[in-house]
């Protein structure tokens, strides 16, 4: 049986503090790309009680995703937007989820992202990462962008850090470990980067900005 919304709210407020939780609950966060970064980011934010998540991805769950992305065998072939929404609802039934099963591009991003307070970049291609970063910071100077760069391979997780580039742009990763160098992505290291992105989001929402 699913606990009541009241019971859920009480537990979150006891653990995070009422003031912080009120801010999490009032927030809308967009997650752009639902792979190793995005699926983990979304789960962290849903567990923390962020009120609304906007999930964006064009792709379907593939066997090559299961070693690091938060999907299940039974979800192979489903759109990631649908599969992740279902998984989030099982974890945190009161999170509001909006999905966009599209390839996010310069010509549709404005409309899709306008409702978000904070935007998480969680793509895998460097060109897409740069496109989204420039677009958000140029077109939406009032919003925050949290991006990831450099989490491939097996180097120490301690190299993955969060860097504040501007007041509205935070970058997580080791900034250099490139999947193009032949290093695969390993779930534990990708999750460190995803968790750092999610934590920056929560800190920004809470007003704890100096990370």
């Amino acid at each position, binding site marked *: 049986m699913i606990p009541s919304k009241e019971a859920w709210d009480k537990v979150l407020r006891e653990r995070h503090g009422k003031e912080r939780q009120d801010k999490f609950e009032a927030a809308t966060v967009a997650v752009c790309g639902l792979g190793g970064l995005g699926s983990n980011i979304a789960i962290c934010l849903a567990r923390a009680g962020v009120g609304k998540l906007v999930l964006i991805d064009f792709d379907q769950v593939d066997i090559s995703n299961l070693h690091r992305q938060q999907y299940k065998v039974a979800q192979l072939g489903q759109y990631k937007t649908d599969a992740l929404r279902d998984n989030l609802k099982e974890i945190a039934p009161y999170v509001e989820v909006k999905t966009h099963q599209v390839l996010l591009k310069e010509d549709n991003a404005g409309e899709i992202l306008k409702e978000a307070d904070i935007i998480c970049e969680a793509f*895998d291609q460097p060109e897409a990462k740069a496109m989204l970063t420039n677009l958000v910071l140029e077109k939406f100077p009032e919003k925050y962008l949290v991006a990831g760069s450099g989490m491939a391979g097996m180097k120490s997780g301690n190299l993955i850090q969060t860097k504040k580039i501007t007041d509205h742009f935070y970058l997580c990763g080791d900034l250099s470990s490139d999947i193009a160098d032949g290093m695969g992505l390993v779930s534990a290291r990708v999750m460190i980067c995803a968790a750092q992105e999610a934590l920056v989001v929560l800190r920004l929402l809470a007003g704890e900005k100096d990370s």
Partner: protein
Amino acid sequence: MVKVNGETMELAGKSLEEYLVSAEYNMKRIAVERNGRIVPKAEYATTILCDEDSIEVVSFVGGG
């Protein structure tokens, strides 16, 4: 002197685009911060670097 990603360089008077090309950045993979603000891509060519400028070039790598 202009500070670029923490290193000081003699770049005053050059355009941002000239520097980025000479440093062989892939223009499709970068975002550039100058003195706390993102420089719009359309302004790389017309942004002239000055002494005391602080530049951060973020060059994205793949994986996610």
